[in-house]
């Protein structure tokens, strides 16, 4: 029996699944809110860097509205660690190439330094919206102003 073609195929499949799992590592399983106007992600601006922040239901099985937790790269964040994380990412984005991406900060009104980072917020629709406020506050203090809400079609 000639096994070589089958082994080729199977290796290809394995490579495919290894690569796709690498991509989805930042994504938690959340039920996204529905919205009719959500635009699919545009990839025309290849310079854009988007961080994915998840807000998922917490393990506590409480009545609605549910409490939740902010998760970034698999780690649960509180207000302090969220701020540290944002500051680190902003610094990395602006640092010159050996230590970062070297993208210049924008200068807003009143000479405020603004980062070019984008943040996609994947927020569970059943979770109460109080974490949204924390995220907005901390982003604003860290100088990140490009935020996006992930939605799904109804």
């Amino acid at each position, binding site marked *: 029996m000639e096994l070589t073609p089958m082994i080729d195929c199977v290796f290809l499949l394995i490579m495919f699944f290894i690569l796709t799992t690498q991509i*989805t590592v930042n994504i938690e399983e959340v039920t996204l809110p529905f919205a009719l106007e959500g635009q699919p992600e545009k990839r025309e601006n290849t310079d854009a860097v988007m961080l994915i922040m998840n807000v998922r239901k917490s393990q506590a099985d409480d009545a609605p509205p549910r409490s939740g937790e902010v998760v970034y790269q698999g780690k649960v964040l509180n207000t302090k660690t969220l701020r540290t994380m944002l500051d680190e990412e902003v610094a990395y984005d602006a640092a010159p190439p050996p230590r970062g991406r070297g993208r210049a900060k924008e200068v807003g009104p009143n000479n405020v330094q603004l980062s070019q980072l984008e943040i996609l917020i994947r927020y569970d629709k059943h979770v109460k919206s109080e974490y949204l406020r924390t995220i907005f506050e901390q982003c604003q203090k860290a100088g990140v*102003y490009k935020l996006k809400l992930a939605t799904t*079609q109804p």
Partner: protein
Amino acid sequence: MRIKQNKRVIEESELDMTPMIDIVFQLLIFFLLSAKFIALEGQLSSYLPKDRGLQASFSKIEPDEVIFFLEWVADPVNDKTGRVRCQTINYKPSPGAASGQDHEFESQDATVGQIEYGPDRRLVQYGEGVDMPGYHIPNFTNIEDYLNFRHGLYETKGSGKSIPVTINVSDNVPMQMVANIVDICTRIGITNVTIAAKEIPID
């Protein structure tokens, strides 16, 4: 005689593939199961104000600004459900009317599951069946009509800008309602949407 022997040796030395194929199949199944596929997701853009240093947003309330107040009212009997109350504060709701007037939107029952939503009044799933009993939510069709009306009023003034909308959410309101109001604003073409953030010191 010699040639025969050689043939036999070659046949015997053929590699046994079975263990490798077993392992490769194991790997394949592992990655198959661990792969999460990205469902088709949309994105609603929202931008924070750029002038964070001055906290200018506190002093600058435009006279025509629409301010939504979303508030969670828990059901006193059944703690599994509740009501989201939505009202606006208008500084000048219409020419001649008193300013500072509240406009409360009536609630609708989303516990059964489907509600009408969007410009073509299509039915969408809201609650989530047994483990998510659902709640009473503001009537988004009314909100959309109202915002359209206010947007129209504002446009006739011809400032060339979009009407400012602020969404003031209390902590307990589920995210879905916030997303719906941002969605409605995007559909009408309002770009000036703020989600009000109370200043709370870091612990």
